[in-house]
């Protein structure tokens, strides 16, 4: 009983990927996002069709069109046709 409970909780814990923003690049070309998180700026290059998870505790993102956006860390950014949309 206890063992199965622990196993279930562990499974839930492991499969729970809750709070992270993800970015999906639906274009064929590589798109670049500039992510500012925890005091440092990093460039996040997304190859065509790639999905990346980033930004667990809130961050700022510069989208391909130059817009600057703030993320709480639960959004999904979808890039298609060079235009990024936040969902």
């Amino acid at each position, binding site marked *: 009983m206890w063992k199965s409970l622990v196993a279930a909780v562990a499974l839930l814990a492991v499969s*729970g990927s809750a709070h992270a923003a993800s970015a999906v690049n639906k274009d064929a070309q590589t798109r670049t996002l500039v992510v500012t998180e925890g005091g440092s700026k990093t460039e996040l290059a997304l190859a065509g069709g790639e999905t990346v998870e980033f930004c667990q505790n809130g961050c700022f993102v510069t989208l391909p069109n130059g817009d600057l956006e703030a993320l709480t860390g639960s959004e999904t950014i979808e890039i298609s046709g060079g235009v990024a949309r936040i969902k």
Partner: protein
Amino acid sequence: MNAFAARESPIHMFFRLLRLILVLALVVSAPLSFEAVAQGVGQAPAGLVADQQKIIQGLTTKTDNFEKQIQQDGVDDGSLVDIRLQLEELSRQSLNSALAFRTRLGEINSRLEQLGPPPAAGQPAEPDIVSAEREGLTSEKAEINAVIAQAQTLSIRISGLIDQIGNMRSALFRNLLTKRYVLSDALSPQVFSDARDEFDNFYKAVSSWLSFAIKFKFQAILAATFVALGLALVLLVGGRRLFGRVFEADSTNEDPSYLSRLSVAFWSTLLPTLAVAAFLGSTIFFFNYYNVLRGDIGLFLNALATVIGVVFCVNRLTNAALEPRLPNWRLIPVETGPARWLVRLTTAMAVVISFNTFLSVVNDKMGSPLSLTIARSFVATIIVGVILILMAMLRPFKARDGSWRPWPAWLRYTSLGLGLFTIIAALLGYIGLALFVSLQVVVTGTALITAYIGFLSAQAIGEESAFANTSVGRWLSANSSYEDTALDQLGLVVSIAINVMIVLVFLPLILLMWGFQPGDIEAWAYKLATGINIGSVTISVTGILSGIVVFVIGYFLTRWFQGWLDGSVMARGKVDTGVRNSIRLAVGYAGVALAALVGISAAGIDLSSLALVAGALSLGIGFGLQNVVSNFVSGLILLAERPFKVGDWIVAGDVSGTVKKISVRATEIETFQRQSVILPNSNLINNAVGNWTHRNKLGRIDIKVGVAYGSDVKQVHAVLLDIARSHPLVLKNPEPFVLFSNFGAAALEFEIRVFLADVMNGNVVQNDVRFAVLERFDDQHIEIPSTPRAVVEARTHVAWPTDDDKIEADFAEQAEAKAQAEAEAKRQAKSGRKTRKPDPD
């Protein structure tokens, strides 16, 4: 010396701990409120840019202030942590204010898309209104981007400051531990005059306050003291009333159980300490309330109250654990003399450390010279070191031969080492280090011992049938319907809960004592609650807990709904029991599945990732769990189709019996021999199932009767029909029928066919009919032929002979003869042994 003060004041720590608990409670509800704020901010369209710009400017000013504070000299550890927490909050706020633009940005972008790009050169010009709108939108977008960029810069800057604070704090701590003071300066005769001056100052401050208080606030003081005393008395007396039995050690009890010893130790520490704390706390509260306190006196009084409380608590704890007067009630089995010494030494240590803490507050407030602080700390650490060494040298146990035995080696050497270390560090001038170590020894030691006793009690409660013997267990068994086994399991749960509680309380406490700041622990708790990232996976305690809670709530809601639907709605609607059962089960399964799904999503688990797991497992399920799945689906079909219901008499293959329970994998059937047969549902779906009581309980039973050739068959027919008709359980319609079924080899064969309203009564009716047939045939001289297969001679008992005297005489004769024969044999054996000569070699 600021750093000393920060680490030395337990009252600060207490309040921080309180705050920490509050924050922990808040953190649980944090994710919800966070989103609510974000949404609320998102709906402010007009003047949005100006508003947020103002907010960000405010945040920037605050950050500037914090930066200045950090760069000041002599900033202490506690305030650094405070600043860090506030900076983190600022960072969140700046992010939030940037988030406020999201909807507006989306609107602008989609509008710009609708407007399309500006016409290229050579193309016809667009209307002015369009270009004006595009320009307006673009410039607004630029403004918004500028504001967000400000927020971004701010958050980068705050991150930098937080890093800086981390570095500064570790440097401060290093400095505290490694700073060396020149003792010869501090320990010169000058110190004595300094001390006298300071004492004079302190005396003056206190006496002036006292005279002020007595002159102007005498009644207030009296009132405050009496109210506080009353409160403490109520607590103490009420506690004694409530826990009186477990509170006092009973000296007449020769062999108290470990659990009762523990509970006595616990309550006799807790209640008086609480009473004293209530008294001191309420005294200070009422003094504050009546404005009796002036200037620094409040701080002194706070410190004094803490000192008294700590010393009292330590004294009570050691007394309770060692019980110098009652050897039977000791938690640690040391001898009486050493126990008395241990209590004295521990109390002395607590007094020294607490007094030193009190003096440090006084020093701090009076602005006394550094040398005085050093001298005071030096003396205190040396005393603590000596006490530690004395404790290590103590021989607390008695061996069987009466000699005294020391502590176990590890304990002795640890204590000895700590004592020597403290003394040597103090002698070398590392006062900060020595004080840190001695404070840790006292405080961490107390916390560890208390936690250890708590663990022991949890273990004792968790033992078999221990919980039922506690007062709570006795109360429960008297006032509720719990069985012994349930109580035992409850005891196990309680013991686990106690363990968890101890960890939750003492881990932060010990971390605090080790110089971690409450801010650190808050940050860890926050992280733990909102999720730790391992790779791309987030483990979130609150998520999992809320998921479990949601599932449990859903489960109980389902059970309640099921009960309500079954008991109130369907029972009153006169719904058939089979339908009721099916609906109840279906609702139960659906509800549990729904609760599980909601729970999983409340735990923040992406169902798509579960789908991945399910996909991987489906192949395995297809092969390995084929039967289970097929039974499961069959169970669902059984519930929907209802070929039988609970209570039906069914025949499935070799099994015939009453259906007891239809569950999702198998159906339980009870045969008429009261054997429970668990039949997998797929068997019931794939094979033919006979149901005697499907639509109604009407059933026919056949009874065969043979009569001898030559009988009057008409008469036989009439007699049989009469018998069938006259039985009260036999239905009139359909009519009973007697079939002349066969000219058999040895008999003319008849069959009585009767219908019964309840086929379950078949056996009774058959019996009655057969008895009646035999009786009537006897009367009417109708023969029932039988074909003898084997001739069996009936065995009759040999009659008991009646001549008792003769048997007695015979028996006596036989017994005598036997006895004579034995005696003869013995004699022969003896004489034989005598006459026989020993064998030659």
